[in-house]
């Protein structure tokens, strides 16, 4: 995928470029806000990673300008401002996700991949399917090999998020945001505990495991071996 990185911190940028390139992406790195904006407007990219503090034009202005011109390019905003209002500001400006520095590269990669997902379903789809696991979105019921599975509301929601992002790594923070609507990290093992409960219900020993733990990153649901 073609990634546009607008980041003036050269070391951080090198780190990101290296990691994304190794993950198979094509990265164009610019250090100036104005140049970055021009590039985003005139060229075609699959995703833009924009630092909030930039020389020239700042990140928020770039995001606003792109959205105002009708550009729907997925944008991930990077910032050292982990502060109270900043996330809201960033999302309000039109960015799709928001990551506070310093971050683990796996977090960045997981979020980039989540933003790159193409919507597989055109129009309303009422079922999600991974392997022999099925989720009925209308009846809110899950089934494995035809066996109905009884899920608590939170477990259902967790499973839905994992299935919608089938094959992608979902980090702890991403799951906390999407399943529990939390923008901070409670120290305790909320995600782990719920994952293990979910596992015990949908990944019984006799079936092929679908929920995978990616060490150092997060979790992923898929049926490849």
């Amino acid at each position, binding site marked *: 995928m073609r990634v546009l990185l607008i980041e003036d911190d050269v070391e951080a940028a090198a780190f990101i470029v290296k990691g994304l390139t190794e993950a198979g992406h094509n990265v164009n790195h610019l250090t100036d806000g104005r140049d970055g904006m021009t590039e985003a407007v005139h060229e075609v990219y699959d995703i833009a990673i924009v630092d909030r503090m930039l020389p020239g034009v700042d990140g928020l202005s770039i995001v606003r300008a792109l959205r105002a011109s009708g550009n729907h390019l997925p944008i991930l905003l990077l910032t050292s401002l*982990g502060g109270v209002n900043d996330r809201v500001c960033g999302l309000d400006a039109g960015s799709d996700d928001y990551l506070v520095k310093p971050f683990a590269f796996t977090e960045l990669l997981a979020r980039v991949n989540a933003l790159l997902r193409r919507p597989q379903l055109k129009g309303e789809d009422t079922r999600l399917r991974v392997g022999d696991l099925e989720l009925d979105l209308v009846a809110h019921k899950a089934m494995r090999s035809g066996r109905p599975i009884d899920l608590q509301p939170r477990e259902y929601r967790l499973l839905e998020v994992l299935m919608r992002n089938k094959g992608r790594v979902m980090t702890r923070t991403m799951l906390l945001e999407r399943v529990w609507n939390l923008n901070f990290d*409670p120290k305790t093992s909320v995600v782990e*505990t719920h994952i293990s409960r979910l596992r015990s219900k949908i990944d019984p020993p006799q079936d092929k495991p679908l929920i995978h733990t990616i060490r150092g990153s997060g979790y992923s649901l898929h049926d490849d071996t």
Partner: protein
Amino acid sequence: MTTPELFKRTAIRLSMTLASLFTLLLLGLYFGLTIYLGAQLESQIGARMRETRDALVIIDRTKGYDELASTVLDEVAALNTTGSILLLLDEGGSFVAGNVKDLAPATGTLKIDGASIRTAEGGKSLRGTYVAEWTRVSKGRLLVGIGDAEVRETLGTLRQATTWGTLLTLCIVLVASLIYARRAQRRIDALETTLTAVSQGNIDRRVPVAGYDDDIDHVAIMTNEALSHLQKLIGNVNQASSDIAHDLKKPIGRLQYQMETTLREAKDVGDYRIAIMDAQVRLAEITATFEALLRISQIEAGARKTGFQSLDLGEVMSQVADIYDVVIEDQGGRFTPATPLPHPALILGDRQLLLQLFSNLIENAIRHCPAGSSISLALEQSDGAFRVIVSDNGPGIPASERENVFKRMYRLEKSRTSEGSGLGLSLVAAIADLHGAKVTLDDANPGLRVTVTFANAHRGAA
């Protein structure tokens, strides 16, 4: 203070404006009065003149022309002032009796200027204006007139007196108002002096309050409150800086020693790998601590208050329960969620911050209670206030320590070995403060009970 500067002072300006206005009004009143009196004067003179004339005409009619002439003579002799003029002419227009001469008959009410009149004896002219009328009598014509000279003189004296009186009043009023104005001005100047001192860095200066309980006092009190708040904020910033310096340097220092040790002692790639992974964990902790300190400072500065919305505490409670029930049960503990109230518990607040607040309280309980402990939430309402209660049956906090736990990085001695940067409860205090809520710690016998009281129940659509 130079004169132009003096006039820029509000109090002085105000008092001089009022004094001048008062004086002008007074003068206006007096002059209006004298004009009115003047007009009254004229009609009264006219009335007196006609009275006199009518009396004389009656004499003419009842006793005859000669009697009239003789009365006029007597009158003239009796008159020792020239307040009245009398002139009797015969049919041919010749002088018969009177105290003036050379005046020709005319119709209507006349106003004759005294300067144009000649006295019968001596031919002197008179002062003032005479309101006079010619009347036909049996054998001639009679002129009766009354002059206003004397009364006008009296009026003139009155006007002079009132003018001087007014000027005197003006002076007194000016002086008095200047005195009062200076007093008020001094208080305003005190405000200015204090604020100047504060802007130069003396943050503990306060404005003197005179005790009159008037508007200047109120401004002074408000200013002092603002200054105290400012001082507190500056104190917080300083506190935050020293906390950061002290409390972040420790783990950073530890990291450094760890790196040095690794360089000295590591033998193979495996050792290095482990050391680096350890370092990553420590770095994450340092970052989290830093973020928390920053967040607390921002919250204390009130940064988030503009984002407040109406929300239901009951919903927040169930969101919190959603996160922790499974976690606590998995550790062998018991979790009791809050029973919802029959109606929404609406307050104005920030959802994420409140989630963080209760999250911290529960985590605190999880961290300090042994496995198998019981943790419960409750939501109560009384007197327009909502109370959220987080309680556990763990070791609790001794009464003597409860005040201290909210200070930034304070930790109870016995918990120094457990994880956590110790910022959890100070973040709780900061968020509660921002929401106007009070946090109290009590003994749960056994265990700890934390009560967060929201006094500002918000009436509005959920």
